[in-house]
C-alpha cells in the first residue's frame, strides 16, 4: 500500500469512528513503546549529551528517514500542539510533508510553517533561524548518534571512551586534520562537548547552527531510530564545539552573498545552480523564515 492510500483510508476511518486513526492508539505507537521512549527521554535530559539506548519501533517509513525523530514527537505530542516539520530547513520537501501528514493523521495536531507559532518542531539537518523560546521543543532526526564513530568502529569501545571521558583520539583526529589541511575540515556533524562532560554529535546540522545549541532557551531532543539512541540538550546548558586555542571554531562564511529571494544576509544560504549556463545564486535554507521575510 502506498503512503497516500494509507492516509486516505485512515482519513475515511477517522470520519466514521471516534478514534483518531482506525485501529491505532493516539500517537500511532502502543503504550509500552511510548513509555519506553518517555523514560529514555527523561534520562537523556537528566544526563545531557549521553546517548540513551531504547527500543526503536517500526514506523510506516523506512529507518533512516526520520523514524527516531518521529518516535520522540509521537510520544510527547498532544492535540493542543502546533507542529512544524522541516527537512534541510525546508517546510515543503517530500520527507517533511509526509511526516507532517502522518503525525497530523495519528495525533490530530495543527500544522504550521512559522517557527515562532510552533510548539514542537521536528527537523532534519537544520535549526530554524529564528530563536526559539522556553516552551518550545526542537526534535532533531539523527542518522549517526556516535560522535566518536569516525575514530573508533566498535560500539563497546566508544561506550568505554564515553564512560571514562577518554576523548584523546577525537582530539588527535582534529589535530591531524589541522596538520593535513591547515584547519579542522568537518563541515557538518561538528562534535561538541555538552555540559563539560560528553562529546556529542549534534546531528548533521551545519556549523552555522552549532552556536544556537549553547545556553539556548529551548529543549533539544535527538532521536536516532535506526541506531536506537535518544539524547538531549536541556535549555541553559553549555555546548562547546571542539576547538584549539590557535584553531578556533568558526561558522560558514557568506560574506558578500545574500538570498536571491528575500535579500537576507544573515541566514544560512544554499547555493543553487540556476540554469544551463551554470550561474550560481543563493537562497535561504530556512524556507519558513524566507517566506516570512518575502511576504
Amino acid at each position: 500500500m502506498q503512503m497516500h492510500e494509507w492516509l486516505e483510508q485512515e482519513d475515511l476511518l477517522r470520519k466514521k469512528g471516534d478514534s483518531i486513526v482506525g485501529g491505532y492508539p493516539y500517537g500511532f505507537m502502543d503504550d509500552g513503546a511510548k513509555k519506553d521512549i518517555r523514560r529514555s527521554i527523561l534520562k537523556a535530559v537528566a544526563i545531557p549529551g549521553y546517548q540513551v539506548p531504547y527500543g526503536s519501533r517500526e514506523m510506516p517509513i523506512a529507518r533512516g528517514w526520520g523514524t527516531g525523530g518521529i518516535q520522540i514527537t509521537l510520544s510527547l505530542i498532544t492535540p493542543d500542539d502546533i507542529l512544524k516539520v522541516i527537512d534541510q530547513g525546508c517546510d515543503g520537501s517530500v520527507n517533511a510533508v509526509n511526516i507532517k501528514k502522518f503525525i497530523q493523521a495519528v495525533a490530530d495536531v495543527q500544522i504550521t510553517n512559522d517557527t515562532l507559532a510552533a510548539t514542537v518542531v521536528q527537523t532534519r539537518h537544520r535549526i530554524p533561524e529564528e530563536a526559539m523560546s522556553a516552551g518550545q521543543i526542537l526534535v532533531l532526526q539523527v542518522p549517526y548518534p556516535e560522535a566518536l564513530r569516525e575514530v573508533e568502529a566498535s560500539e563497546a569501545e566508544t561506550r568505554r571512551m564515553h564512560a571514562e571521558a577518554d576523548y584523546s583520539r577525537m582530539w588527535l583526529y582534529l589535530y591531524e586534520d589541522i596538520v593535513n589541511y591547515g584547519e579542522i575540515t568537518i563541515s557538518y556533524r561538528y562534535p561538541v562537548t555538552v555540559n563539560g562532560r560528553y562529546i556529542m554529535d549534534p546531528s548533521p546540522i551545519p556549523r552555522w547552527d552549532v552556536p544556537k545549541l549553547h545556553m539556548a532557551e529551548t529543549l533539544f531532543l535527538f532521536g536516532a531510530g535506526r541506531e536506537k539512541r535518544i539524547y538531549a540538550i536541556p535549555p541553559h546548558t553549555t555546548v562547546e564545539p571542539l576547538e584549539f586555542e590557535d584553531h578556533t571554531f568558526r561558522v560558514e562564511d557568506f560574506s558578500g552573498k545574500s538570498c536571491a529571494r528575500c535579500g537576507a544576509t544573515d541566514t544560512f544560504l544554499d547555493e543553487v545552480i540556476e540554469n544551463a549556463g551554470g550561474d550560481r545564486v543563493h537562497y535561504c535554507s530556512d524556507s519558513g523564515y524566507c517566506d516570512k521575510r518575502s511576504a
Partner: protein
Amino acid sequence: MRSATIHKDHATFRVVLQAMSHPGTTCQLPVLVPIAGEHAPLIQLLSCLMDNEVSFSIVGDDAGGLASDISMHTGSIQSNISESNFVIATKGTTSGQLSLIKRGTLEYPDGGATIVYLVDEIAEAEGTAELSGPGINGTVRPRIAGLATSELRELREINAEYPLGVDSMFLDTNGRITCIPRSTQIGEY
C-alpha cells in the same frame, strides 16, 4: 466525541518533561481524567512512564494499598529498593536508604533510578538550597515543604559522582511537580 483519556498520558508527560528540563521550577500536572483516591496525582504521573518493563519500590508507609494501586494502573512489579527503576518515597524521605538505590554504571548511567518524593507543598521561591546547572537560568531556590531536611544533602552526596546518580521528582498534594535531575548542583544550606 473523543475522550481525553486517549491522550492524557501525553499531556502529563509534557508537564513532566518541562519540569525535568527546567529543574527547580514548579509545573502543574494537567487535570484531565480524575482518578479516584488519595494518590491520584501520583498514579497519573507514574501512568505515563511505567509499565511491566520496569519495577518500583515504596519507602515509607504503603497507605491504602498504594503498591497494589500502582501495579494495577501501570502493570509494573514491586521489587526491592536496590533493584527498582522507580522508588516512591511517600513521606518525603528515603529514610537513609538513598545509598541502596541504583545509580547506573559509567557505561550505562541511564540505569540510575528515578525517585518520586511525595511532599506537602512546592513553591518556586524561598527554598533552603540553591540549585544550578543544565536547564536552570542562573540559580533557583524551590521550597519543598514536607521534604526531610537532610534529604537534599544526601541527594547531593549520592549524585557527586556524575554521571552516576539518581533523578528526583517531587510531587505535592495539589499535583504540582518539580524535578532535580542528577545534573543539577545542589548548593550548601
